[in-house]
């Protein structure tokens, strides 16, 4: 155990970033879960990531407004495409979202094929690095998320959902990486599946916040990278938080649902 690793100047901004991402991703994740379109968020996060990678391949850098524009634009275009797919082919939308996901990932690889450090860029966007966030960056995202939560509360359905989703994910992917975005969106929402809104949100936020705190503490104590440690902490806490009913009783064995 290395107590010197518990440097609040290092850990607190990361924890705040986690809470911020959680604030928008729990309600969005519950909706994704309710609609049964789990792969959609991975695809959307990847599309925002593709925009970042494409802009960087063109010579722009992380902080440039061109990169934000490219990330936002590709996430919005992606959202429009995903919405179109859902409207036109509802029966096979999960398959189509899977196809969109794999096309987006491979497009990123093609975009950086001739870039000597392309592999590092892609890995950085997937695994993210939650420890690098600064307070200034968090303040910008906090203002953005406050706006998004307001819009989401006023109109949580239809094409607005996809817009809110696209913008939220564009910001969060650059903050914490694709893996943590997916984990934050799905795991707390899974843990509170079937509960009514007020209880579900309170419990989901608690599970998510605890997941980030435990993950960061474990990564500091055991000298592990924070992002992957938080993903596992979120999974364990979601499982514990889901309660006895879901742990020991399944919805239906072999074909409860078609």
């Amino acid at each position: 155990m290395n107590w010197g690793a518990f440097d609040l100047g290092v850990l607190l901004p990361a924890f705040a970033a986690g809470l911020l991402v959680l604030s928008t991703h729990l309600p969005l994740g519950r909706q994704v879960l309710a609609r049964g379109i789990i792969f959609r968020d991975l695809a959307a996060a990847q599309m925002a990531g593709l925009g970042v990678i494409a802009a960087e391949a063109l010579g722009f850098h992380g902080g440039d407004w061109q990169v934000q524009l490219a990330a936002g634009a590709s996430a919005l275009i992606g959202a429009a495409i995903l919405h179109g797919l859902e409207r036109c082919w509802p029966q096979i939308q999960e398959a189509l979202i899977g196809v969109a996901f794999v096309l987006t990932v491979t497009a990123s690889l093609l975009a950086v094929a001739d870039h000597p450090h392309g592999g590092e860029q892609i890995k950085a966007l997937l695994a993210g690095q939650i420890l690098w966030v600064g307070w200034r960056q968090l303040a910008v995202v906090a203002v953005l998320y406050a706006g998004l939560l307001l819009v989401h509360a006023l109109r949580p359905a239809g094409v607005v959902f996809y817009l809110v989703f696209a913008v939220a994910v564009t910001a969060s992917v650059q903050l914490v990486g694709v893996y943590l975005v997916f984990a934050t969106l799905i795991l707390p929402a899974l843990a509170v599946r079937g509960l009514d809104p007020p209880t579900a949100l309170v419990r989901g936020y608690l599970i998510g916040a605890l997941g980030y705190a435990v993950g960061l503490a474990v990564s500091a104590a055991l000298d592990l990278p924070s992002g992957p440690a938080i993903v596992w902490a979120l999974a364990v806490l979601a499982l514990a938080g889901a309660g006895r009913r879901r742990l020991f009783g399944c919805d239906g064995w072999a074909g409860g649902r078609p």
Partner: protein
Amino acid sequence: MVHHDQWVYLEDWLGLKRVGELEPKPGIPPTPGHLAALKQRLAREPARVILRAAYMDLRPAQWLSEQTGIPVAVLPFTVGGAPGADDLYGLFDVTLARLHQALQ
């Protein structure tokens, strides 16, 4: 203070002393313990500048600069890495100018 251990020849040439690296294992994110230890070491023996290659992620160097107040110098690293570094002469000129500017 460097992002990756990639400035060996520059350090040797100019007699710079490397205090530490932000990402000791390229591609694997650093741990909180590593970053905390880095901050403690910098408090003991302060570095004068953080070196970052122009092509690298800007966030790690920016983060450390925010945490410690040490300025960042963005160096072209190779020909074409920054405006003005169009040939080998330009590369050295821009590298020295930016180091000088950061150390002011």
